[in-house]
């Protein structure tokens, strides 16, 4: 029998509904989902940080952390422990309410954006009919948290970083949205399970010809910019702005910003994997060959995480290759290059979708 997470969720749901009345069953399910999401967050925080540091080190001909645990694999655990026991310091003359609220807003938006992600067949928190629009809308809320942190810190570096971040996210939201639209148009639905189902006979990046390839590249660029990572890390820019919007934060509040950054990377990469690389769909060539049967036996969740981590690796790869852009270069890149290319590409994709030239 094939491994299926849908079977587990269905049987848990059935057992809870048979044992308790529907309201209590729903509450228990919510608690289970919350615990799972928080566990995933902690896991992502630990794994992605050590992955980033190791990838960075190897690309820069260094060794990276190699003292705590085998090959330094427990370094992030030690770092987290340190951050937990540190004092959550609130400086004088900051806007105390906004200062303390900002990290939670950034964190909560990252958590909410996780809701429509399909981890495996039928293993999805909320299959809403506007799934992809929901994710795009929610991820852009995180800029409010960043602006809040920058403004309330009462610090010139924080304010500059926050303003840059605002300009950047507002611009890059456009090309991210337009490159997502190409896929939405080809699959004819905003519901994420429909988008994944449309890729059962081949992923969009193979089926959709050149327009999908172009929109994939633009999506990766825009996703990097939206998560405020190098080469678009104008909001942090440690060499110019010390640490940008989170200069004044320490301890667990800083850790929340740090964690939210990595969770956001995971989310944009998961969205990219779902839209362009077929989500949890296994790799298929043609129909009914032995290769396809073997691929079907690999569980969907492995496919999903494999594709997501591949995209995360690509994003890390160019983070540690390219130098940081200046703010005017950053906005030039968006408004003079990515947006026009995106619009032409959308037109091309429309023609392909109407004429039915995709496979």
């Amino acid at each position, binding site marked *: 029998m094939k491994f299926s997470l849908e079977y587990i969720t269905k049987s848990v749901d059935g057992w809870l509904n048979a044992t308790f009345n529907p309201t209590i069953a729903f509450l228990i399910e919510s608690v289970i989902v919350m615990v799972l999401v928080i566990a995933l967050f902690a896991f992502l925080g630990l794994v992605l940080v050590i992955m980033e540091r190791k*990838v960075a080190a*190897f*690309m*820069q*001909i*260094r*060794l990276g952390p*190699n003292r705590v645990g085998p090959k330094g694999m427990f370094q992030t655990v030690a770092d987290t422990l340190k951050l937990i026991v540190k004092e959550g310091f609130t400086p004088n003359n900051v806007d105390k309410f906004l200062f303390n609220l900002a990290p939670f807003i950034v964190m909560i938006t990252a958590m909410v954006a996780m809701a429509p992600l399909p981890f495996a067949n039928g293993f999805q928190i909320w299959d809403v009919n506007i799934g992809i629009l929901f994710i795009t809308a929610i991820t852009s809320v995180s800029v409010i948290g960043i602006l809040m942190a920058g403004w309330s810190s009462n610090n010139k570096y924080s304010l500059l970083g926050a303003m840059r971040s605002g300009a950047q996210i507002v611009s890059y939201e456009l090309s991210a949205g337009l490159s997502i639209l190409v896929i939405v148009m080809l699959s004819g639905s905003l519901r994420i399970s429909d988008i994944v189902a449309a890729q059962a006979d081949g992923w969009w990046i193979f089926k959709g010809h050149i327009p999908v390839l172009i929109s994939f590249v633009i999506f990766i660029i825009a996703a990097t910019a939206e998560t405020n990572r190098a080469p678009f890390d104008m909001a942090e820019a440690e060499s110019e702005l010390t640490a940008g919007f989170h200069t004044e934060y320490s301890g667990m509040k800083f850790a929340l910003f740090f964690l939210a950054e990595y969770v956001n990377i995971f989310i944009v990469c998961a969205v990219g994997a779902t839209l362009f690389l077929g989500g949890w769909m296994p790799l298929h060539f043609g129909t009914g060959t032995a290769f396809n049967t073997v691929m079907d036996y690999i569980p969907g969740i492995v496919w999903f995480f494999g594709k997501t981590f591949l995209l995360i690796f690509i994003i890390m*790869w*160019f983070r*540690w*290759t*390219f130098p940081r852009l200046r703010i005017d270069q950053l906005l030039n890149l968006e408004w003079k*290059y990515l947006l026009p*290319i995106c619009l032409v590409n959308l037109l091309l994709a429309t023609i392909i979708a109407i004429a039915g030239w995709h496979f």
Partner: protein
Amino acid sequence: MFIVDYIKEVFGAIKSLGTGMRRTFWYFVHPKEIITEQYPENKENGQLILAERFRGEVVMPHDENNEHACTGCTACELACPNGTIKIVTKFDITPEGKKKKAIDQFVYRLEMCTMCNLCVEACPSDAIIMTNDFEHSVYDRNELTKILNKPGSKIRDGIE
């Protein structure tokens, strides 16, 4: 044409970014290229590799007859920016009965040395060199004032 230049620019950008990414990926899949020295461990198993021109402390090489090449010309003392070197000279009597200037003590104060290599470059007879030795910690700072010429040593023949 504007649009041709525009497209050329886009493709040129993609190509140059691709070049950079190929290089970093090459390093990523070739861990043998890593140049990090894991210092205290690799000292024990003898894998500490230092560059040939790494500048540690100044020493004066002596050959098997306990002879060095220093004429006591004080070029190094004049070249030193922080007064690390102090040369005390004396007068030897040569077999022909003439007086000849020679060094009595070559005083080298490691505590003041910045390993700038200027003394080695200034030396006309290559009497001093810099070694790779970099572990200079001692418990008493007097140990850092060193006499570089060995006791009883004298200048090699043929060096003026």
